[in-house]
Structures are given as C-alpha cells and as structure tokens.
C-alpha cells in the first residue's frame, strides 16, 4: 500500500530523510516513533506529498509520487490525514467540515454527503455536535471530528501525525479509542505517536527513527522487550519512565 525505496529529502543543508526503505501492507497499522526533530512528521507528510521527496521512489496506493504525471489531488483524496493541531475549518460547522470534500470532489449531493457524515459522527460519538463550530468543541472532540473528516472520503490509508500530543491528558483516551476501532476495522494506518500503549495494543509494527533514518523496525513486543539500538533503548527509557 505504501512503499518507500531509497527515499531522501533535504531542507536546505539538512538531510531530513536519509535513505528510507519501508513497506506498509494493506490493513497494517504502523507506529512511527523517535526523538523530536528526527524526521517523523516529514516522513509521514511525504506520503500525501505535503512534503515532496528529492530522491528515491515512493509508491502509495498504486500511484508513483516520484512520477510527475501522477495526479496528486487524486492521490490525496485516497488518503486521510490527521494533524496534531486538528486544523478544522473554523468558519464551517462540524457537518460542513466533513461534507466539503465529498461534495466538491466525489460530487455527492448534499443529502447523501450529510447522511454519510452523520454516520461518521455517530461512529466517533459526536452526532449531537453536527451544527457546532469547531471553537465550541474541546480538543478531543475536535480531533475526533478531524478523523471523521478524513474518513469521509473513504480513504484507503489514514495517516496520523501525533494526533494526541496537543490534547489534555483526559482527552487522549477518547481519541485513541476511535483510532483503535479504526485499526480493528482493517484500515491501513501509519501513526506518528509516543503513545506506547497504542503501539503495543494495536500496531503490527513499530518504526523507530533518529536523525532522518529508520534505525529500527520490529513487531511491538519485540521492540519494547528488546530494542536493538542504544538510541532506541534511551528513547524508550525516557518515554516510559514517567509512567512507571
């Protein structure tokens, strides 16, 4: 579903992605972790071309991003992206946040789009908020709406860039629950997160990044019990210590 082959990216002199080779199979849930500034966001943002790659090959849902002829808008319609800062449209109601893209791109009529949006809102437990504006919602609620917005295009892949990092602790659970349900439903997911509970329970694989490279890639049990690299061991110690 997602295939990185020798992908490189630079921000000026900064080699932010260094020879990335990764594969994500359909239905797989992959967690990406690593210290701040290691290139996790950049990595996940290359998948829908928010950050174009400079070198190598990247194939997503059968479309080759290194090929100039690929229709990027079409690719993006197949991928849901959830941001750390939610990025809901503040001038639109919850319902309109969700129906905008299906109406404009999938050419659904308003009624069908709204029915579909309501079904998604039920799924994330926010049906009663359909006419609220984003500013009237808590962070956790906003992020759940953002997930529903991503799902409205019936994507093949869902990407999450630290979806719970901007949330108050008491709201993290509700968002993770929605993501878990999604994972169980068979969605292909790539999730940048430091929620190791989520990684352990739900993910099929953990990818550990440092300084723009993938240092380690393992099943969660393996990764937590037996991290191979010093950097990964240090990172895990730091991340897990406050909770134990």
């Amino acid at each position, binding site marked *: 579903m997602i295939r990185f082959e020798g992908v490189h990216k630079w921000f000026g002199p900064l080699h932010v992605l260094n020879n990335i080779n990764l594969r994500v199979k359909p239905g797989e849930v992959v967690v990406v972790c690593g210290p701040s500034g290691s290139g996790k966001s950049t990595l996940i943002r290359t998948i829908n071309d928010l950050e174009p790659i400079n070198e190598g090959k990247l194939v997503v849902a059968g479309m080759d991003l290194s090929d100039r002829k690929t229709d990027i808008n*079409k690719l993006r319609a197949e991928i849901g*992206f959830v941001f750390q800062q939610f990025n809901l*449209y503040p001038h639109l109601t919850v319902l309109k946040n969700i129906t*905008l*893209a299906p109406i404009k791109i999938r050419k659904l009529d308003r009624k069908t789009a709204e029915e579909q949006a309501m079904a998604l809102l039920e799924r994330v437990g926010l049906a009663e908020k359909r006419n609220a*504006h984003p*500013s009237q919602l808590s962070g956790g609620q906003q992020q759940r709406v953002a997930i529903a*917005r991503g799902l409205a295009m019936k994507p093949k892949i869902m990407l999450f860039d630290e979806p719970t990092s901007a949330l108050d602790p008491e709201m993290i659970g509700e968002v993770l629950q929605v993501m878990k349900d999604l994972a169980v439903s068979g969605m292909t997911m790539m999730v940048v997160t430091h929620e190791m509970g989520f990684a352990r329970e739900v993910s099929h694989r953990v990818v550990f990044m440092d300084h723009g490279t993938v240092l380690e890639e393992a099943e969660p049990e393996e990764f937590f019990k037996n991290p191979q690299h010093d950097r990964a061991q240090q990172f895990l110690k730091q991340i897990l210590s406050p909770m134990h």
Partner: protein
Amino acid sequence: MIGGLDFTVVWKDLPYFFLGRYPKGPLGGVGLTLYLAVVSLFLSFIGGLILGLLSVSRNRLIKWGSSAVIQTIRGMPLLMVIFWMFFLLPSLLGGGMPASWTVITALTLFTSSYMSEIVRAGILGIPKGQTEAAISTGLSHRQAMLHIILPQALRNMIPSFVNQFVSMIKDTSLAFIVGVSELTQVATQMNNRTMLYPTEIFLFIAVIYFILCFAFTELSRWLERRLAYQKAI
C-alpha cells in the same frame, strides 16, 4: 449668526451642497462624493481581490508581475493618478468619458493596490494548516483558496475595508482638481461666487466630511468588536 459667523450662505443653498443640481441636472455635492466613493470602493474591492490573489500566486511570474504593478501604483501620489487618468483615458478611448469616471478609474486603481495588500496580508494570515488540511482531503489549491482560505481571510479584512472606505471619502475631494462637482468642488464654487464667507463654507464641509468619516470609522470599530466576539464563541 454663530460666533460672528454667518451661515446664511450655506443654509440658502443647502440642497446644492447635498445634491448639486440634481434632480434637474447632474448629481453633485455630498451625493456625488458618496457616489464616487461607493462605486470606486466596489470596483476597488474586486480589483484588490484579483491583485491580492495574483500576488500570492504559486506562479512566480504572476506573483512578481502583480507585485510590480501594485508597487508602481503605490509609489505615485493619488493626485498624479487622477491627472493621468483625466488626460489619458479620454484620448485612449477616443473621448466621451465623463470626468467623474476618469476619477473613479483613478481612485479604483489607487485603492485596489492598497486593498490588494490587505487581501494579501489577510490570506497570509490564515494558518498554513488550513491549506494543508484542505489539500489533504484532495481539494486543489484553488478550491482550498475559494472554500477555506478566502472566507476566513475576507471576514478578518472587513474592518480594514471599512477603513479604506473612510480614506476613499476623503480622497474623493481631490476630484475637484479636474472639475468634478463633488462636495469640495461645490464649496469652491460657492466661495468663488461671493468670496465673502470662506470660513463658513469650508467649516461646513469640514463638518460634513467629519460626520461621514466618523460614522464609518465607528461602523468599522463596531464590526471589529462583533467579529472578535464571534470568533471568541
């Protein structure tokens, strides 16, 4: 008589101050001032929107081209632009353009370039995450601009637009230089007729300009508060 001033000259010709020779002749005075301001503002809004959008284009050539136009116009005094249009347009169009429309064209060009900066700043002021979220759902950059960025940006720009309107009302007074009978021109005419009451006449039109501008400044403040309130909820 107020403080030794005699406003009879004003009261006697009050309709002339407000409407010129309208309805028997062409509109003038305050009416023409407002007409020039409203029409020019409307056209400047469209011009500013277009120039502003061009100036944030992802195509460099378009971006630089529009910036060059904007900076050139901004670098000229308004009076110059009015003269240029007054002498240039009729000869370009083979005559037949009324002076008031050459003034409207000049005001529109001039204010469009200022408006475009407001539009540009408004667009750039919307967080990048908004565009990213929109294009991530598959919307094109153009659709993202139309449905997500512009509606938010325009809303933030409303107070600035009203302020531009206030400037526009004051700027219309320069139309007197090419003989368009707006408020200042009317006042000059009245004064030339007798030469006895310049203080009264110009005091009177100063008050009218003040009232117009004050009213619209208040409107802009009120809008600003209202929008801030809407944002807060």
